[in-house]
C-alpha cells in the first residue's frame, strides 16, 4: 500500500504533520523526492556533527558548472522524513529523476533552460515545483492576496492535529488545480516535469516489487496527483528510455537561511526561514502565546540595537495584531499581522527597523555545518585542477613568485590569484616591486597557503562551482553593496585584474548608479581618468567599450554640472588637489575625444575662469586651459590676465592665479610662443607705476621656478619676441676647453670607439 504525502518544501507545518502521519503509519519504506545519487552520502544526515541548514550538492566532476543544490532546513519535511527513516532503520530512497540525466539534459538544445530564468546555480528541480502560480491560484480563490499568506495560514501556522485530513486536503486541492488550470510552462520544463514524475512512479513500482508493504511517499504537493494515478509501467519506461547521462558525484555543503529565502533568487525558497524555524520550535504553543513570544524576540533584538522597546510596546503590538487578525477574519495573527503591528506600535511607522527584523529574525543568519568527512566540494576540485594545470603548488612555506604577464601561463596564474583574492582566499599578496600604477608586465607575488583556506573554499562554494563563477558572483554582490565611488573603482580594477568579463557590466553599472547620486564632485572627477583610459586603450579585455562609454557620458555630464559648485570656497590645499583633478580630467576628456563632452566641459571651464568664483589657482588654470584649447583667443586671455593681476586684487589670490595659469612651471613659457607673446605683451603694456606694484606678484610666482628655467626665460626676454629655436641658441655657456677634453678618453673607451 502506497501512502502519498504532498508537502511544501521547507514548510514546518507540513513537517510536523508528516512526522505525526509517519508515526501513525510506521512505514517499512520511505520514498522522498530527491536525487537518487545522493543516497550514497545520506548516512551523514544523522551524523552527530551535521547541523542544518545544509544542502545536498550534486555535480558533474568533469564539468563543475553543472550542479544542483537540494537544501534542507531543520523544519524541512524531507529532512525530517530522512531522519525518521535513518534513525528507525527504515529504508530511505530518493525517487526524483537522477541528476545524471537531469544535468545531462541541460546540454540538450531542446531542453536547454533559458539562462535568464536559471536562477544562478540553484536547483531547477525545486524551482519548478509548487512555488508561484498554483499556490497563488488557490490563495486568490480563497480571497487572499497571494498564495504565500494563504498557505501559511492554512498549513504552516495551523495547530490542529488532523494530519491525515491535511494531506488528503492537499491532494484534493492540487488535483483540482492541476485539472482546472493548465499550467503555462515552456515546453522543455513541461517535458522535464513529465520525466521526473515518470521516474517517481517507476521508483514507487520498484519499491512495491521489492515487497514493501507500507510505502510512504514524500513529495512536493504539486506532484501528488501525478503519483496517485499510475499509468502503465511501459509508458513511463518508454519515456525514460535513452536519456543522456553524465557522471555525477554527491556531497553535502553548508547552507544559510539567507540562501534559503526566496529573496536571494532561489526558486523554491521560502520567504521566512527564521519564522518557520520559530514555528517549528514552538509547535505546541497557543496561537496567541506564539505571537507574544515572537514579538518578545523582536523586542529583545530592538533593545540590543538601542531602539526603545518596552513591555508595554509588546503588549500593545500583540493587541493590535489580534485586532487586525479579527478584522481580516483570520483565526490567529500571522506573520503579516505581527509585522504590521510591530511597525505601527514599536517602530513609529518606520521601515528601517523592520528591515533589521527581517534580516535578523524573519530570515535569520543561521549558517549550517557539515561533518568534516564529507567528500570535497566542486569549487575545491576546480581549484585543484587549476593548480595542477598552472603548476602552482599550495605550500605552507612563504615563497616569492615573479610573473611575466606576457607569458600566457603566467597571465592565467595572475588571474587565478586575483580571483582567489576576491573570494577572500589570500593565498598570494602582490609585492609592489616591478609594478607601477599603469601596470608593467611584471607582477611579483608572495605566496603562502594556509590550512584555513579549506574552510574559506567551502564557504565560497555558495557563490559558484568554479573559481571564476564564484569570483564573478561575489564581485557583483559586492558592487551592489558598495557605498563609495573609490571602493567601486577599486573593485572595477580588481575585476579587470582578475579577468572576470561577466562581472564588468554589473560592476560598472553599479558605478554609474553610485555616480548619479554622489554629491561630491571631486569623487566624480577622480572616477573619470581611469575609466577614460579603459575606454581609450581597451584595457578592459573583451569588454564592450560602449558600456564604459555610457558610464563616462553620465560621469562627464554630471561632473560638468557640479564643477562650479565643487570649486567654490576652496582653501589652498583643497585648491591644489582640485587643480590636479581638473588637469587629469581635462586630459581624460581630450583622450576620449568626444565632441559632446568637450561641448559640456569647455563652458564649465569658462565659468570657472570667471574671476572671483573660486580659488585663484583653479581660476588661473581654467584660463590657461581655455587658452591652450584655443577656445579663447590671445586677446581674451590677456584681458583675463590683466584683470586677475590688476592692482585692485589682493596679492595672494593674484599670485595664485598666475601660478595656476603657468601650471607652476616656466618651461611652457619657453616653448609656447603664443603664451610667451601674450604674457610679454601684457607685461610690456603696464605703465611704470603699475609695473612696480605688480612686480612682487610676478616675482613671487617666478621664484618658484628652477634657476635654469629662470635664466632661460631671462635670455629669451632679452631677445624679446624671438621664436623658440632662437631660445636654444641664446643660451650661451662659457666652455673650459681644457676641462672638457679630460673625460673624452674615458667616454671613448666606454662607447668602444677606439677598439
Amino acid at each position, binding site marked *: 500500500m502506497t501512502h502519498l504525502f504532498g508537502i511544501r518544501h521547507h514548510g514546518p507545518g507540513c513537517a510536523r504533520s508528516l512526522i505525526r502521519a509517519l508515526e501513525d503509519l510506521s512505514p517499512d519504506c520511505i520514498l522522498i523526492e530527491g536525487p537518487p545519487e545522493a543516497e550514497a552520502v545520506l548516512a551523514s544526515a544523522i551524523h552527530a556533527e551535521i547541523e542544518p541548514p545544509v544542502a545536498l550538492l550534486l555535480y558533474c566532476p568533469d564539468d563543475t558548472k553543472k550542479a544542483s543544490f537540494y537544501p534542507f532546513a531543520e523544519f524541512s519535511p524531507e529532512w525530517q522524513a530522512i531522519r525518521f527513516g535513518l534513525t528507525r532503520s527504515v529504508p530511505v530512497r530518493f525517487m526524483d529523476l537522477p541528476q545524471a540525466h537531469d544535468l545531462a539534459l541541460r546540454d540538450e538544445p531542446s531542453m536547454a533552460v533559458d539562462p535568464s530564468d536559471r536562477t544562478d546555480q540553484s536547483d531547477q528541480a525545486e524551482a519548478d515545483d509548487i512555488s508561484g502560480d498554483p499556490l497563488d491560484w488557490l490563495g486568490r480563490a480563497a480571497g487572499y492576496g497571494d498564495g504565500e499568506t494563504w498557505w501559511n495560514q492554512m498549513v504552516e501556522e495551523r495547530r490542529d492535529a488532523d494530519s491525515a485530513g491535511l494531506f488528503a486536503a492537499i491532494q484534493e486541492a492540487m488535483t483540482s488545480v492541476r485539472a482546472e488550470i493548465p499550467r503555462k510552462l515552456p515546453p522543455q520544463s513541461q517535458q522535464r516535469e513529465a520525466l521526473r514524475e515518470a521516474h517517481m512512479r517507476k521508483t514507487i513500482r520498484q519499491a512495491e516489487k521489492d515487497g514493501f508493504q507500507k510505502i510512504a511517499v514524500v513529495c512536493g504537493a504539486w506532484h501528488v496527483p501525478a503519483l496517485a494515478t499510475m499509468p502503465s509501467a511501459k509508458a513511463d519506461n518508454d519515456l525514460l528510455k535513452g536519456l543522456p547521462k553524465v557522471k555525477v558525484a554527491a556531497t553535502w555543503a553548508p547552507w544559510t537561511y539567507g540562501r534559503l529565502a526566496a529573496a536571494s533568487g532561489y526558486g523554491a525558497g521560502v520567504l521566512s526561514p527564521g519564522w518557520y524555524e520559530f514555528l517549528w520550535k514552538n509547535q505546541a504553543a497557543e496561537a496567541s502565546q506564539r505571537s507574544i513570544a515572537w514579538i518578545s524576540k523582536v523586542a529583545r533584538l530592538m533593545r540590543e540595537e538601542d531602539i*526603545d522597546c*518596552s513591555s*508595554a*510596546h509588546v503588549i*500593545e503590538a500583540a*493587541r*493590535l495584531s489580534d*485586532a*487586525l487578525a*479579527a*478584522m*481580516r477574519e483570520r483565526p490567529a495573527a500571522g506573520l503579516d499581522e505581527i509585522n*504590521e*503591528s510591530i511597525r*505601527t*506600535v514599536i*517602530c*513609529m*511607522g*518606520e*521601515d528601517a527597523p523592520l528591515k533589521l527584523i527581517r534580516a535578523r529574525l524573519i530570515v535569520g543568519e543561521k549558517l549550517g555545518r557539515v561533518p568534516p568527512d564529507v567528500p570535497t566540494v566542486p569549487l575545491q576540485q576546480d581549484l585543484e585542477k587549476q593548480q595542477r594545470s598552472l603548476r602552482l603548488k599550495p605550500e605552507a612555506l612563504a615563497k616569492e613568485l615573479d610573473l611575466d604577464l606576457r607569458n600566457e601561463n603566467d597571465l592565467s596564474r595572475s588571474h587565478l590569484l586575483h580571483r582567489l583574492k576576491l573570494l577572500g582566499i589570500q593565498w598570494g599578496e602582490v609585492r609592489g616591486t616591478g609594478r607601477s600604477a599603469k601596470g608593467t608586465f611584471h607582477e611579483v607575488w608572495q605566496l603562502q597557503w594556509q590550512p584555513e583556506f579549506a574552510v574559506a573554499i567551502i564557504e565560497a562554494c555558495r557563490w559558484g562551482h568554479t573559481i571564476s563563477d564564484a569570483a564573478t558572483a561575489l564581485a557583483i554582490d559586492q558592487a551592489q553593496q558598495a557605498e563609495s565611488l573609490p571602493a567601486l573603482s577599486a573593485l572595477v580594477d580588481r575585476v579587470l585584474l582578475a579577468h572576470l568579463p561577466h562581472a564588468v557590466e554589473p560592476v560598472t553599472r553599479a558605478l*554609474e*548608479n*553610485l555616480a*548619479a*547620486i554622489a*554629491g561630491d564632485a571631486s569623487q566624480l572627477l577622480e572616477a573619470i581618468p581611469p575609466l577614460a583610459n579603459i575606454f581609450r586603450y581597451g584595457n578592459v579585455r573583451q569588454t564592450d567599450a560602449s558600456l564604459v562609454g555610457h558610464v563616462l557620458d*553620465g560621469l562627464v*555630464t*554630471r561632473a560638468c*554640472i*557640479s564643477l562650479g*559648485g565643487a570649486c567654490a570656497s576652496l582653501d589652498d590645499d583643497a585648491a591644489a588637489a582640485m587643480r590636479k583633478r581638473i588637469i587629469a580630467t581635462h586630459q581624460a576628456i581630450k583622450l576620449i575625444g568626444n565632441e559632446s563632452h568637450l561641448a559640456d566641459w569647455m563652458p564649465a571651464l569658462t565659468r570657472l575662469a570667471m574671476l572671483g568664483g573660486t580659488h585663484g589657482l583653479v581660476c588661473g588654470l581654467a584660463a590657461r586651459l581655455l587658452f591652450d584649447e584655443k577656445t579663447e583667443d590671445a586677446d581674451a586671455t590677456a584681458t583675463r590676465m590683466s584683470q586677475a593681476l590688476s592692482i585692485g586684487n589682493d596679492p595672494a589670490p593674484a599670485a595664485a592665479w598666475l601660478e595656476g595659469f603657468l601650471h607652476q612651471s616656466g618651461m611652457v613659457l619657453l616653448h609656447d610662443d603664443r603664451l610667451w607673446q601674450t604674457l610679454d605683451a601684457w607685461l610690456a603694456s603696464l605703465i611704470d607705476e603699475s609695473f612696480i606694484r605688480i612686480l612682487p606678484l610676478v616675482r613671487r610666482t617666478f621664484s618658484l621656478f628652477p634657476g635654469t628655467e629662470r635664466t632661460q626665460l631671462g635670455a629669451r626676454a632679452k631677445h624679446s619676441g624671438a621664436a623658440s629655436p632662437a631660445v636654444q641658441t641664446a643660451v650661451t655657456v662659457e666652455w673650459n676647453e681644457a676641462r672638457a677634453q679630460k673625460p673624452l678618453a674615458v667616454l671613448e673607451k666606454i662607447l668602444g670607439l677606439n677598439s
Partner: protein
Amino acid sequence: MMNTLRQHAEQLFAHELDELQKADTRQRPTNWNLSPWAVATYLLGGRLDNGFEVSAKYIGNRRVIEIAVATLVTDRALLLYGVPGTAKSWVSEHLAAAISGDSTRLVQGTAGTSEEQMRYGWNYALLLSKGPSKEALVPSPLMKAMSDGRIARVEELTRIPADVQDTLITILSEKTLPIPELSSEAQANRGFNVIATANNRDKGVNELSSALKRRFNTVVLPVPATEAEEIAIVTKRVGEMGKALELPSEPPALKEVRRIVQVFRELRDGQTADGKTKLKQPTGTMSTAEAISVLNSGIALAAHFGDGTLRAGDVAAGLVGAIIKDPVQDVVVWKEYLETVVKERDDWKDLYRACREVI
C-alpha cells in the same frame, strides 16, 4: 448650502454612510456608527451586498487603512504620519466621519495652540460674575469628544509646542481630563479616541516626547505605490478641482498627466521608471498633491493665455517651481535630470526645450 466652498465629509458622503449603516450587520464597538469592517469599506470603496457602490476615498494600500481602523478598535490613539500631500488629513476626516458621523471635533495644531484649546477655556463674564462653575467652562473639541464618546482630531500635532502636546498624555492614558478649578474631572466615554496627523518633513519642529509617542500607534501613509495608482489619483483630483475652479480648459491629456507624474515619481524615488538610472533627489517632497497643483496651474495657463490645450510649455514653469526649492542643490539635481534623462527621451523633446527656457 450650495455656496459652501467645501463640505464636510459626512455631508458630502451622507448617502453612502447611510447605505453602509443599513447594510452593516457586523459587530460595532460601543458608540461607533459602523463596524470596523464597514469603516474600511467606506474608505477603500467597494460594492455592498445590496448592490450599492461605495466610492473609494483613499486610493492605495488596503492594509494601511485596515491597520488604522484596527488601532482605533484597540482604543490606542492613531497618529497618521507621512510627507506632506499624502492624504493624512483626508483620511483622518473620513475616519472620523465614518466612525462618529462627525469630523468637526478638530484641534488645528499651530505654533500658537494653547492649552485652553486642548483642554477647556472659560467664559470670563460668567466666571467673574458667578465664580468657577460647570456653566462657565468652555470645553475644547477634545473634551466634547470625550463626553460624547466620539473621535476627536488633532491636525499637525508636531506644530504644537511640546508642553501643550503633553496635555494629551493624561487624556490618552488615563482617558480623563482633570478640572482642578472645580475639583472634578471629565471622564471619557467609550468610543472616544484621537486621530492625530503630523508630517515627517518637519521633524524636530516639536518632536513628540517619548511618553506621548508611546501612546500613539503610528501609521505612515506612503506615497502612491505604482505609477498607475498615482496617475489615477492625479487625474481624478485635477478633474474635480478644475470643475470647482470653473476652468474653461479641456481636461488634461492623459499623456501630459503621465509625464508629470513620471517626473515626480522619478525624482522622488531617486531613479528612473525603468530602474536603470539612479538620480539625485531634490530637497522638496515631490508629493502627489504638488503634481496636482502643477497640472492645475498648467491648465489655468493654457486656458487663460493659450488655446486651452495643455502643452509642455504650460507646465514647465510650474514644474520647475515645484522642484527647485533650494536655489543651489535643487538646481544641480534638476539640471542633471534634464540633461541625463529628459534629453534622452525622444518624445520628451518639447518638455526638454520648454524647461531649458525656464531655468
